[in-house]
């Protein structure tokens, strides 16, 4: 009953989105503002409707309604309530509804803003948003219905939207339960963050399409969506970092990024999104790179849909992939349609995207931003090729191959290094005119300082060439950025007579985008330190030891103390927990508790490491079950991951940086001024 109501709401929402799209187009073509307004109101209706549908689904999830197929698949009686709520996005059908719900929220937010100056964009933004929503909702209505129920017929038990003849409702006693890997706090927030990032990039795309269709290809569409792009980028970045942190904490292979095809599918829109974020600044300031900006946002949207498609269609083999289903071909059709339409529009308006000024020097800031775009696109090409290669190889040679981390690491390392170099040079480059001489005058001090830092690292830490190059670049970028910050603050100090701290504060406050951006750059370099540490210097060892025996790795010693195993019946888990003592260079540091959680309902186990985190390194101890652990002997695997915590530290600073950059500037205050001599106003004729 309740499930059918939920389905009905979905069907209504589907028709509402279709109506909204058609009304917008009709109203725009026939110049009927009332129709466009009607379309806008219809769009506003989608969020309450989808919230209702979502509410119904959550109600069913929490209340053990196992006759609903989705509830059966992703929940079980042993799961706590909060996990049942989050299982909303733990399966195919529910996650599609979640996507649609987020999309409607953002579309509504967009339609609520003031449209006075951009009335011509409105219909097309509505069309793009509603067509996307119609697609996702249409898939839930026709193919992946989260409200489908289980019915028993003579042929067996199957899920149907409408009750078949001669069948009865089938209610299983308990559900299958969420994949144990998903029953973790990190896993709760990672998919929503990613979806938020994906969905919010649809808005700048919608405005870009509107700009192409209406011909208003100046930078208006960019100014309007500036804040959207920043927030979208923030969500996507956070989603990626959270996914990495979760993988590190829970998956138990001692790393945070496996270059899995689905990880890359989420990374690719981030690449184009970052390039887009930077490139629009050049269009705003100099009217250049207009073609690039259109191309980048179209690519971002296409990659968002493509990424969503890859995880759900079974085209790629991956640990992330949802079970394969009929929606693969539909996604494919939608991607083809939107890609072809966007490219056609871009080619049609190509000449109206001509630059307003010209680039005069290869070392000017505009040229460096162009190089920036090129580097991001190159990394994208590498990633895309790596993802698509197994497919093409199987097609042309019949042989299945795997493209793993070595390819991605070797191919992208020089590109990332080049990016870091650009990050170091660009803040010091000048608009318009820059030569090697002017640049070197600006940059020689930070460069010398960076070389000194690298020399110190060479003497005290490592002689690895790759690492030294990496650390040099990190030092260069951080020093250049701090130098820029200091120069601005110093100028304020001298000019306004403020002390240095007030100067920094007001400087940041007055130019949030720029200085927030600098903070973000510094945070990315901190993350780079972490990545360099773990990628180049990670060591591991594995061994089976008895109680009281020890394993050594890199100055650390772990001694096996005890093992305990117990059931948690209500949660349906069996815990096997080992206690190990940790000491470094003979000094006792504490205990760690690596454990294995075995989930009865899904017959899967999770390996939770014992971690000890310091800025210098991470000690990471796993209880392996190559052979069953017992009190006589257990197999442990130890990783020492140097510098990895700089990665997480950097991501916190990153968050701060983005918030600063996105913080709204104070609106100009409107002050009422009394009018002494009112001017006679004549109503002008035509306007």
């Amino acid at each position, binding site marked *: 009953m309740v499930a059918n109501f939920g389905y009905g709401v979905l069907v209504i929402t589907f028709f509402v989105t279709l109506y909204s799209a058609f009304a917008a187009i009709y109203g725009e073509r026939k110049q009927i503002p009332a129709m466009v307004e009607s379309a806008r109101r219809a769009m506003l209706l989608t969020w309450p409707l989808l919230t209702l549908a979502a509410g119904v689904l959550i109600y069913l999830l929490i209340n053990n309604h196992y006759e609903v197929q989705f509830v059966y698949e992703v929940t079980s009686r042993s799961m706590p309530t909060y996990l049942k709520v989050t299982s909303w996005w733990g399966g195919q059908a529910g996650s599609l509804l979640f996507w649609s719900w987020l999309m409607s929220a953002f579309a509504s937010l967009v339609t609520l803003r003031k449209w006075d100056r951009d009335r011509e964009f409105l219909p097309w933004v509505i069309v793009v948003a509603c067509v996307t929503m119609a697609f996702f909702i249409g898939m839930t209505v026709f193919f992946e219905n989260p409200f489908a129920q289980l019915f028993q017929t003579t042929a067996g038990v199957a899920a149907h939207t409408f009750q078949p003849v001669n069948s009865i409702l089938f209610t299983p006693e308990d559900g299958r339960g969420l994949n144990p890997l998903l029953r973790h706090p990190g896993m709760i927030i990672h998919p929503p963050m990613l979806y938020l990032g994906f969905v919010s990039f649809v808005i700048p795309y919608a405005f870009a399409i509107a700009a192409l269709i209406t011909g208003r290809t100046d930078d208006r569409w960019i100014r309007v969506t500036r804040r959207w792009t920043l927030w979208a980028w923030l969500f996507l970045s956070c989603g990626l970092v959270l996914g990495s942190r979760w993988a590190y904490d829970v998956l138990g292979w001692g790393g945070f990024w496996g270059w899995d095809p689905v990880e890359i599918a989420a990374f690719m829109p981030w690449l184009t999104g970052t390039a887009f974020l930077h490139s629009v600044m050049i269009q705003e300031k100099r009217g250049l790179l207009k073609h690039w900006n259109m191309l980048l946002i179209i690519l971002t949207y296409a990659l968002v849909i493509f990424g969503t498609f890859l995880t759900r269609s079974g*085209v790629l083999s991956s640990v992330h992939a949802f079970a394969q289903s009929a929606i693969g071909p539909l996604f494919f059709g939608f991607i083809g349609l939107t890609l072809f339409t966007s490219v056609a529009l871009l080619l049609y308006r*190509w000449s*109206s995207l001509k630059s307003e000024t010209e680039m005069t020097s290869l070392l000017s800031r505009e040229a460096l931003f162009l190089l920036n775009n090129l580097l991001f696109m190159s990394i994208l090409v590498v990633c895309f090729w790596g993802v698509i290669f197994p497919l093409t190889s199987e097609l042309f040679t019949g042989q299945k191959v795997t493209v793993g981390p070595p390819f991605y690491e070797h191919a992208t390392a020089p590109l990332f290094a080049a990016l870091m170099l650009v990050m170091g040079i660009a803040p010091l480059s000048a608009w318009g005119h820059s030569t090697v001489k002017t640049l070197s005058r600006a940059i020689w001090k930070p460069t010398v300082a960076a070389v000194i830092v690298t020399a110190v690292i060479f003497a005290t830490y490592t002689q690895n060439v790759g690492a030294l190059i990496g650390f040099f670049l990190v030092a260069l970028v951080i020093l250049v950025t701090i130098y820029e910050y200091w120069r601005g603050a110093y100028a304020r100090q001298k000019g306004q007579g403020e002390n240095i701290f007030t100067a920094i504060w007001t400087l940041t406050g007055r130019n949030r985008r720029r200085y927030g951006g600098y903070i973000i750059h510094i945070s990315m370099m901190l993350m780079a330190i972490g990545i360099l540490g773990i990628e180049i210097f990670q060591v591991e060892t594995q061994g089976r030891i008895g109680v009281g025996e020890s394993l050594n790795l890199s100055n650390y010693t772990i001694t096996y103390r005890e093992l305990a195993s117990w059931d948690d019946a209500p949660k349906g888990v069996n815990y096997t927990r080992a206690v190990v003592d940790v000491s470094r260079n003979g000094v006792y540091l504490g205990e760690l508790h690596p454990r294995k959680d075995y989930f009865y309902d899904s017959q899967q186990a999770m390996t939770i490491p014992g971690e000890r985190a310091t800025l210098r390194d991470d000690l990471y101890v796993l209880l392996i079950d190559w052979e069953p652990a017992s009190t006589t002997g257990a197999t442990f695997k130890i990783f020492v991951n140097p510098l990895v915590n700089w990665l997480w530290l950097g991501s916190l600073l990153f968050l701060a940086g983005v918030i600063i950059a996105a913080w709204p500037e104070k609106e100009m205050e409107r002050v009422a001024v009394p009018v002494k001599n009112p001017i006679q106003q004549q109503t002008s004729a035509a306007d």
Partner: protein
Amino acid sequence: MKIQRLKPSQGLNKIENIMTESSIPVPRRGVPIWIQIIIWAFLVGLLAIVAVGLKRAQEGTVQPGAKIEDFTFNLFQGYEHNGQSQIKLSDLRGKVVVVNFWASWCKPCEQEAAELEAAWKEYESAGQVVFIGADYVDTPNEANVYLKKFGITYPNGEDRDLQHERPLSQYFRIKGVPETYFIDKNGVLQYVQIGPFSSIDQIRAQIDPLLK
């Protein structure tokens, strides 16, 4: 001089024309046709590749009704068929062929191992049915242990087709183990069993109709 009201975009174009007139001419009206063709061709090619990949992912195992291609199958040491350590499917024309994919690490396979061997014992003497066991992605030691444990006597070998130089499982497009394929006397696939048999009756039920 006629003063013509220009739209802002028009004015910009005109100025650009003047400014660039002295330098090398750039294409002004849209993108050249040959570039457009390249772009569209590239996009179509890309989508085509993804489409084929998608189709592959969607298609299931080889379906009943398909004529099974000939294959040459090497047997493990200790197994032979007609005095040979190789089996060629085309040599078995006129007999019913049952191909079973299994692995020593596959727990459900153990459920049906005894039933398969018992069924083989029933049909072996008449010589009208041939059972072939294909060991899918397995280690030699454990495979041996498995075969000895269940006393399997019908021909078994590593999952490989020597004629086409590919795994036999790749040709059948199996989705997992155990899977059993029933091929009739004319070399046409008649039935696919996904998962283990629960009783010997099920096996008989598939073979007997094909013997007629």
